[in-house]
């Protein structure tokens, strides 16, 4: 028992001292997948000699675990920087007063649509919401509204609209086109025999296996299937004049209010917003689209300047998303 008591004393003492807080460290909460974000953070450590303490999110928590942790820690924030994999969460946090403004010099050159007006968050390296289409399909969808097109009856699949980028995409369409048009579209979509998958990845697999003709997914889901040599190809939705445009989901990086290491935090934000970081994320398996002009896009996709992008106010999208959740849940249960 004596040994156990001494072991406990030493272990607890060491545990209490385990927090690295030397001014040369920065704490970041990350919603981007660890396999893609960790190498970039390691590169930052190597380049600056600073230590990065990270908390990563999981697929299990639908990538919102760390955001909820930030909300819970509002009174005593532990993180200095939050790297979200989409800007909706950034807006939720901004409205809750959890963020502090910071205008990074490296954000210059990124289209204003991807930057929060008061500099509470900055977008970088994006995913595109596009169609993965089976090579066996005789018809090509061209608009998200083809989900309700009788020509594709029982042939399309979409990820659960309660989670992730699919929810954000639907909310963006609601905020752009209005409730009446979108509720009618959702109803028609259901009547057209649309299948619901649990995730974008599963939707992409269902199309790759030939079970469905097309699915609206994220660009990284398409890139991985193309790398594997699956019989699929890409279609950019709503690209004609007068159409709504392609929905772009940038990563968003932000400074936390009352961050304990504000200098180091700003350094990390500058690093993530740099052209070099965007190039690294474009080359990585996630194949993200750089938002700085002139940075080479992944080989599977067109660069951002060649696309007709949906112009949305991400703050409005966030607001809409909160309002829509209950009705989307009901729509799903119908």
């Amino acid at each position: 028992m004596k040994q156990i008591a001494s072991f406990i004393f030493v272990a607890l003492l060491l545990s209490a001292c385990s927090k690295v807080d030397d001014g040369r460290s920065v704490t970041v909460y990350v919603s981007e997948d660890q396999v893609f974000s960790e190498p970039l953070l390691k590169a930052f450590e190597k380049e600056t000699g600073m230590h990065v303490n990270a908390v990563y999110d999981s697929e299990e928590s639908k990538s919102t675990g760390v955001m909820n942790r930030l909300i819970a820690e509002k009174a005593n924030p532990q993180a200095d920087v939050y790297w979200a994999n989409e800007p909706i969460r950034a807006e939720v946090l901004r409205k809750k007063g959890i963020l502090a403004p910071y205008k990074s010099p490296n954000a210059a050159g990124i289209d204003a649509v991807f930057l929060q007006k008061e500099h509470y968050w900055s977008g970088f390296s994006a995913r595109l919401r596009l169609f993965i289409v089976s090579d066996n399909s005789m018809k090509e969808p061209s608009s998200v509204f083809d989900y309700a097109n009788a020509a594709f009856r029982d042939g399309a699949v979409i990820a659960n609209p309660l989670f992730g980028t699919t929810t954000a995409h639907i909310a963006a369409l609601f905020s752009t086109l209005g409730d009446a048009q979108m509720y009618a579209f959702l109803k028609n979509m259901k009547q057209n025999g649309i299948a619901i998958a649990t995730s974008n990845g599963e939707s992409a697999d269902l199309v790759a296996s030939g079970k469905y003709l097309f699915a609206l997914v994220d660009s990284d889901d398409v890139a991985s299937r193309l790398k594997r040599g699956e019989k699929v190809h890409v279609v950019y939705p709503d690209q004609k004049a007068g159409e709504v445009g392609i929905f772009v989901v940038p990563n968003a990086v932000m400074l936390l209010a009352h961050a304990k290491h504000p200098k180091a935090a700003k350094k990390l934000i500058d690093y993530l917003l740099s052209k070099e970081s965007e190039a690294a994320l474009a080359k990585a398996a996630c194949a993200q689209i750089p938002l700085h002009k002139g940075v080479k896009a992944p080989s599977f996709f067109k660069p951002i300047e060649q696309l007709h992008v949906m112009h949305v106010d991400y703050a409005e999208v966030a607001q809409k998303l909160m309002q829509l959740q209950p009705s989307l849940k009901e729509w799903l249960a119908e």
Partner: protein
Amino acid sequence: MQERKFAIGIVFIITLIGFLPLIVMLFHALSGLEYEKVLELFAKKAIVESFFQSLLLSAFVAFTSTLLGTALGLLFAKTDFIASKLFVSLLIVPLLVPPYILALGWIDIIGVESVLSGWLFGFWGVAWVLICVYLPIPIVLSMLFVKQIAPNLENMAKLYTDEWGVLRFITLPRIMPAFVLSFLLLFILSFSEYSVANVLRFHSFSLESFVRFSAFYDFKSAMLLSLPMLLVAALVLLIERLYVEKNLTKMKTPQRINIIKLSKKQQLFFSVLLICFVFIILLLPLFSLFSHVTLQSLALAFDKALFPLMNSFVYSLSAAALLTLLGFLSAYVISFKFLSLWRFFDGGIVFLFTLPATVLGIGFILLYNRVWLDFIYASALIVILAYVGKYLALAVKMSEHRLQQMPSSMLEAAKLSGASWFDTLRYILIPQSKKVLIAVFVVSFIFSFRESTLTMLLYPAGHETLSVYIITQMANGRPEIIAALSLIMVLSIVVPFFIFMRRKVI
């Protein structure tokens, strides 16, 4: 008087570690509550449906596992079956492995688009994985209870009936409390488990609460939805107190019991049956998952996961040491009834174990995330304390079992010789419980090591554990690396367990 002060001190420590986070969480959930909103939330069809689905799933898993586990427990403890020890060791492994790893193994076997996928991704798939995971509990419980039955009782019965008659009319009724205890324990564990339901996409009630938390950014609803889970846990605990405790005779040291002799044919039949059974529930999913592992991927996974692995060992060993100490001292307070409220103390500790980890995790954040408590919240201490709060019941129950077996004559002799309560504790109870204390340490280490939900919510930045690392790697990580990490995880738990088992500690 002194022992009373000591008991109050122990209760105070456990309150800080376990009860207070729960009280703070409940306070937050219930403060400023709007009656209409609560009604609206609980009137939703999807919520009511998921609640009843979860009740059905838990009842099915609890009943099937208990039935099967009790039958196996009887075979291992009551007959001269030659391979009992080997099969008990193998059948315990699924409980040691994090449940989601078994679920991943089954996804690997069946796939997401095969004919059987519809079966796997839903009620039956979740039920199957949970039955495999929880089966060791009724096996061990029934073996323990069988070894409590006095042989002379069975010998007397033998005058009137044969061995199978004795089994039916004496043995089975005597182990009924084990059956009920196992059913209640598995019911509550299945009801609060959500990692398997999440991986296999089953709409369980615990997942519904989690969705409110994660998808709806709605703390209040998530906490409100955890209230029915608290009620179910409380109800189960009440039944346990009313029925099991009343029917549970004081546990004694396992004794020599009458053994039923199996014929050669029966030995062969049970051996073949169990080989097939172990192959299906354990070897098939694990081999299928680990078949992706190459030496290269194992080396790479080890290189990546070295720090998380070290963290896992440090946190789990620290938590195990603390659990051993506090578990034994709490059991001492409960067994010797130093406080009039000992029943509440005992019930509260068990209640913490039955709580969904998310509920306890939120409670820990709400209570400990304060500037002046940063030495706890922003360090590994928060994870260690959370493990202690969650798994204290295991340590207490194991220690209690040993303390109840202690001959009262020994304690009376100590008292007559003028030994104080502390001397009795130090020179009699602790030395006499050495073996149990090591067993408590090992069991606490295993449960802490495999824990992921609480850790995910609480781990300080840069201090992730192996189980958390595996979960975060699941998002777009390479399958061979995830399989290699899972193999490291399984070996880290199973190897120490079997070393201690060979040394007959467990």
